[in-house]
C-alpha cells in the first residue's frame, strides 16, 4: 500500500491546477489583471499635479495601485470565486476526497502569488514608462518591497479565504465584496492623497491593511523626503509589518476554523 500524498505536494498540484483554470477563464484574467492597469492609465493621465517637491500624483497613484493589486488578486478574487465554487458543489466534492483543506489553501496562495507578481510587473512597467516612477537603487528598499509583497499577498489570500464565508451565494459575492474594496481604496489613499482626507476617514482606514500597504509601497518608490508628508511624518514601516501580521493571523484563524465547504 502506497502512502497518501503529503498536504504540501497536493498543495503544489492544486496550485498548478488553479493557474490552469484561471488562464482558461479569459474574463477573469482580463478583470483581475488588466483592470488595475487600465485604471492606472486613466487616473495617471488625468491627475498630473505635483503634490510635493519632485513627486507627482501619478507616482503616488502607482504606489497605491500596486498595494491595491495585492488586495484585488488576493482578497477580492478569492472572496468572489470561492463562493462560486461552493455553489457549483466543487468544494463539497473536494471535501469528500483525501485532499486536506491545507492543500486547497496552498493552491489558492500559489494562484494569488503568480497573479500578484504579473500584476506588479505590469503596473511597475507602465509606471516607469509613462508616469516617471523611478526604480530604487538602495537594496534595503527592495528588501522592504519583498516583505511587503510577501506579507501583503499572504494576508490578502488568507483574508479572501476567510471572507468567502460571508457572501450567501456565488451570484451575490461580487456585490458584497467589490464595494468594500472600492471604499477601502478611497479611504486608504489610493485614489486620493491620504493626508487630504478627513481625519475620521484616515482613522477608519488605519484599522485595515490597505492603508498600511499603500504607505509601505510609497516608502519604496517615492523619495525619502516625502516621508515628512505622511500622517506620522515618517514611513512607519515597523508598524505596517505588525499590523499586516495581525491581519494575517486573523485571516488564517477564520480560514481554518470557519471555512464553508457547502452552501447552507
Amino acid at each position: 500500500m502506497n502512502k497518501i500524498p503529503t498536504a504540501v505536494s497536493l498543495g503544489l498540484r492544486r496550485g498548478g491546477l488553479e493557474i490552469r483554470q484561471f488562464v482558461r477563464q479569459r474574463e477573469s484574467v482580463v478583470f483581475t489583471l488588466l483592470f488595475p492597469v487600465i485604471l492606472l492609465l486613466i487616473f495617471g493621465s488625468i491627475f498630473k499635479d505635483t503634490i510635493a517637491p519632485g513627486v507627482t500624483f501619478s507616482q503616488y497613484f502607482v504606489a497605491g495601485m500596486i498595494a491595491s493589486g495585492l488586495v484585488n488578486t488576493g482578497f477580492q478574487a478569492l472572496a468572489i470565486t470561492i463562493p462560486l465554487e461552493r455553489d457549483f458543489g466543487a468544494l463539497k466534492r473536494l471535501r469528500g476526497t483525501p485532499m486536506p483543506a491545507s492543500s486547497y489553501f496552498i493552491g489558492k496562495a500559489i494562484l494569488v502569488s503568480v497573479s500578484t507578481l504579473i500584476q506588479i510587473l505590469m503596473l511597475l512597467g507602465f509606471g516607469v514608462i509613462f508616469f516617471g516612477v523611478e526604480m530604487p537603487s538602495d537594496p534595503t528598499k527592495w528588501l522592504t518591497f519583498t516583505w511587503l509583497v510577501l506579507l501583503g499577498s499572504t494576508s490578502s489570500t488568507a483574508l479572501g479565504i476567510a471572507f468567502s464565508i460571508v457572501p450567501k451565494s456565488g451570484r451575490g459575492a461580487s456585490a458584497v465584496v467589490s464595494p468594500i474594496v472600492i471604499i477601502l481604496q478611497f479611504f486608504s489613499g489610493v485614489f486620493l492623497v491620504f493626508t487630504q482626507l478627513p481625519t475620521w476617514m484616515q482613522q477608519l482606514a488605519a484599522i485595515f491593511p490597505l492603508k498600511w500597504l499603500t504607505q509601505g509601497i510609497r516608502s519604496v518608490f517615492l523619495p525619502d523626503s516625502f516621508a515628512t508628508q505622511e500622517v506620522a511624518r515618517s514611513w512607519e514601516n515597523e508598524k505596517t509589518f505588525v499590523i499586516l501580521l495581525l491581519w494575517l493571523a486573523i485571516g488564517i484563524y477564520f480560514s481554518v476554523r470557519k471555512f464553508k465547504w457547502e452552501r447552507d
Partner: protein
Amino acid sequence: MAAIEVTGLTKSYGSTHAVRGIDLTIAMGEIFALLGPNGAGKTTTVEILEGFRAPDSGDVRVLGFDPRGGGHAARQWRNRIGIVLQATSDSGDLTVSESIKHFSGYYSNPRGVDEVINAVGLDEKAGCLIRELSGGQRRRLDVGLGIIGNPELLFLDEPTTGFDPQARRSFWSLIKSFRNDGTTILLTTHYLDEAEALADRVGVINHGQMLEISTPFELGGRSSAQAVISWRDGDVIKTQATYNPTSFIGTLTSQFNGEIPELTVIRPSLEDIYLKMIGEAHE
C-alpha cells in the same frame, strides 16, 4: 467486519426530525439501495455516513471508522471511500482527462486514468472541456471521479438522474462490474427498476424511519404476494388474483385442454410494493 454499521441514528434540523432512529448494517461487497420519497431522510442519512454531517445521536461506523473523526486518520479513511454526490457542476475549465488525472493524485492507490475514462465510456470525450459535455456525460465524469481512488466503499447518490434509457443500461453494467471487483456500494435512487437490477438488498426509508430491509424480491412480502393471471376466454380477457398460480394454471390447462390463449402471470413489481409501503406509512 461490516462495511457500514449504524445503530440508533437520529438527526434533527430545528423542529424537523429528519432521521428518527435508523439501524443499518451493510456487508462488505454488498450493493445496497436506499429507497424513499424526497424528504424521507435518505440524503441526511447518507451524508452522515459520508462525514458531511454530524448525527445528533447514534453509533456510526463506516469501514470501522467514525466519519466525524478528523486528522490523518480521516484522510486515510477518505482514501478508501468514493463519493458521487448529487448534481455537481464544476466550472468546467478542465478537460475530462485533466480532471480525472488530477483527482487520481489525491489517492494512494488510484486506478489508471485511461482505465477509468474507458470504464465510464468517455474515451471519445477525454480531451474535451467539461463545460462541453452533455448532462449525462457530466454524470459519468462524476462517477469517474468517484471511483478513481479505487474505493472499497462507493456512495452513489441518484447516479442516473437525467440519463436516457440506453445510458442507464450501460451505467448499470458499469456498476455490476464494480461488484465483481468486490466494491461495496451504497446507492440511493428514485428508480425502482434500478434498485431491482443492481441491489442485493434494499431498504425503504420514510419519515426518517427504516420501514423494511429486504432483498428486492422479498420486500413487502412480494415473493409470497398474490399473482395476477389473465387469459382470453372467447371474446373477453379474464383475470384472477391467486396465491397459488401454478395450480390455477393447471386447472386452466385442463379446462382449455392444452394451450391457454394469451396467458400472462404478473407478480407485483417492486414499484407496486414500494408505493404500497410508502402509502401505508402516510396514513
